[in-house]
């Protein structure tokens, strides 16, 4: 028998999709039966009370969470988010219901027994409910009480070699794709860069010193499996400078139907014979490809590195050899001003350990944003307010065609007086020699 009747929530179990309500009821039952005999340190009925509180919110159409708090662990200004309920007498199990964020392993590689260790700790000292993974990428633990926080932190750091993640006005837990560990498209070692920069910027991760949140994400190639271009203030995306490598025999094999396109993906139905003109050449965003006389050609100067042709024919086309990364800045979700994608700051930068060139760009951007950013202003908003050219200036980067949104149709750049020979002043007599009134 449920502790609180939840008729409204029960309706959410009736659809064809997996239901978080069913999951929570299952987790609540597990806490009661406790088959592993876990020494539960927070109320056994925490999840029952959470369901009851949510039902109450559905009934009265308002939240019963008090926002934020002073809770945390010693020495850290992030990683714990205080949550309190405004109905503690009725729902004592969720009177305190703090969130804990844990740094995820690079590329989200876990060993099963490690995951089990983490879950056992959370079953003991928290609600047992997790969010794998949060939007930022980290492991999110939902619901514990204040006295458990230092205990959790001690056990994480001393027994499991595991750190907390970022929250508040901090650097958030950096995230990366699987990179070279499994992917032939990776143009640099995303996991190494993620790990190196996480260690390098520990102070920013754990102690707030920014105007607002700041996110790094590392994609190994323009396929963007962690969607850094949309989800991070500082996106590092792998790219290459030279030609896409073409195996003409393999191209012919794709055309002849001997190799399945898209590495066999989308094979659930018959799409007809592979048509290279329609499916590759015609879909190239810059029309820089041609296939004539059984030979595929790519005009590298006009290639965007969009990855489409490589994705369709991975056995025939390979990324180039002169590899590095592009840096884009300023993506954000729509709290103010609407959602924004990152804008290209550095078209190509070496991405080799110890990543000094990239650190230099990061620190220039931080210095500027910490100086100029308003309270609760994301980097993307500062960019919009003060202009992208300012960001170029603070990073010591000269404006070039890649910085212009549509260089082929609108190649307009605002020059400053000191960037133009002769400045804004002119000798009118010299001018009149060439231009009659």
């Amino acid at each position, binding site marked *: 028998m449920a502790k609180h009747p939840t008729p409204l929530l029960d309706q959410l179990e009736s659809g064809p999709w997996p239901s978080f309500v069913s999951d929570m009821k299952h987790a609540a039952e597990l806490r009661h039966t406790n088959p592993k005999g876990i020494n539960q340190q927070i109320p056994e009925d925490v999840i029952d009370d959470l369901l009851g509180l949510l039902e109450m919110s559905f009934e009265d159409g308002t939240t019963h969470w008090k*926002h*934020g*708090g*002073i*809770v*945390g662990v*010693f*020495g850290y*200004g*992030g990683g*714990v*988010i*205080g949550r*309190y309920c405004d109905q*503690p007498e009725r729902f004592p199990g969720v*009177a*305190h219901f703090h*969130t804990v964020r844990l740094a995820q392993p690079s590329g989200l590689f876990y060993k099963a027994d490690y995951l089990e260790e983490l879950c056992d700790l959370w079953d003991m000292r928290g609600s047992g409910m997790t969010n794998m993974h949060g939007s930022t990428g980290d492991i999110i633990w939902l619901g514990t009480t*204040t006295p458990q926080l230092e205990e959790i932190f001690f056990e994480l750091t001393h027994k499991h070699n595991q750190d907390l993640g970022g*929250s*508040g*006005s*901090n650097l958030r837990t950096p995230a990366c794709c699987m990179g070279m560990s499994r992917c032939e498209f990776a143009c640099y070692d995303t996991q190494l860069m993620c790990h190196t920069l996480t260690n390098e910027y520990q*102070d920013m991760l754990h*102690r*707030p*010193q*920014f*105007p*607002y*949140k700041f996110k790094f994400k590392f994609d190994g190639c323009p396929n963007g499996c962690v969607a850094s271009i949309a989800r991070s203030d500082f996106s590092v995306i792998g790219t290459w400078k030279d030609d896409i490598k073409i195996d003409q025999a393999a191209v012919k094999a794709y055309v002849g139907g001997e190799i399945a396109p898209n590495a066999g993906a989308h094979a659930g139905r018959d799409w007809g014979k592979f048509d290279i003109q329609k499916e590759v050449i015609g879909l190239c965003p810059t029309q820089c490809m041609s296939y004539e006389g059984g030979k595929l050609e790519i005009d590298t100067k006009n290639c965007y590195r969009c990855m489409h042709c490589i994705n369709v024919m991975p056995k025939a086309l390979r990324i180039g050899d002169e590899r590095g990364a592009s840096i884009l800045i300023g993506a954000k979700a729509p709290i103010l001003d609407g959602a924004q994608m990152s804008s290209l700051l550095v078209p190509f930068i070496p991405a080799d350990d110890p990543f000094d060139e990239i650190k230099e760009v990061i620190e220039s951007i931080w*210095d500027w944003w*910490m*100086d100029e950013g*308003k*309270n*609760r202003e994301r980097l993307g908003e500062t960019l919009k307010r003060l202009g992208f050219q300012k960001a170029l200036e603070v990073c010591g980067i000269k404006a070039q065609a890649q910085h212009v949104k549509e260089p082929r149709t609108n190649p307009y750049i605002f020059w400053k007086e000191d960037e133009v020979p002769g400045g804004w002043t002119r000798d009118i007599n010299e001018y009149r020699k060439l231009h009659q009134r």
Partner: protein
Amino acid sequence: MDETEARQHIVDSLKAKTNKSKFYLKDFYTFLPDMKKMEVGKLVNKMVAEGTLEYWSSGSTTMIGLKGAGKQHATEEGE
């Protein structure tokens, strides 16, 4: 201004503000306009670690105030 004076100035400035108890890091920059912003940030974090100041976080934003000041603290301590 040396570090001891800067610390005292931060505490005095916070005590003088009676209308609110939590401040953005940027507010601390205005308390110490002659110091580098990065240094102010480091000093504030040091004062939190020592227990003079404390963080308040909504989860997305962090604010800082004198330890024990404000309603939030009284509510949370009692729970």
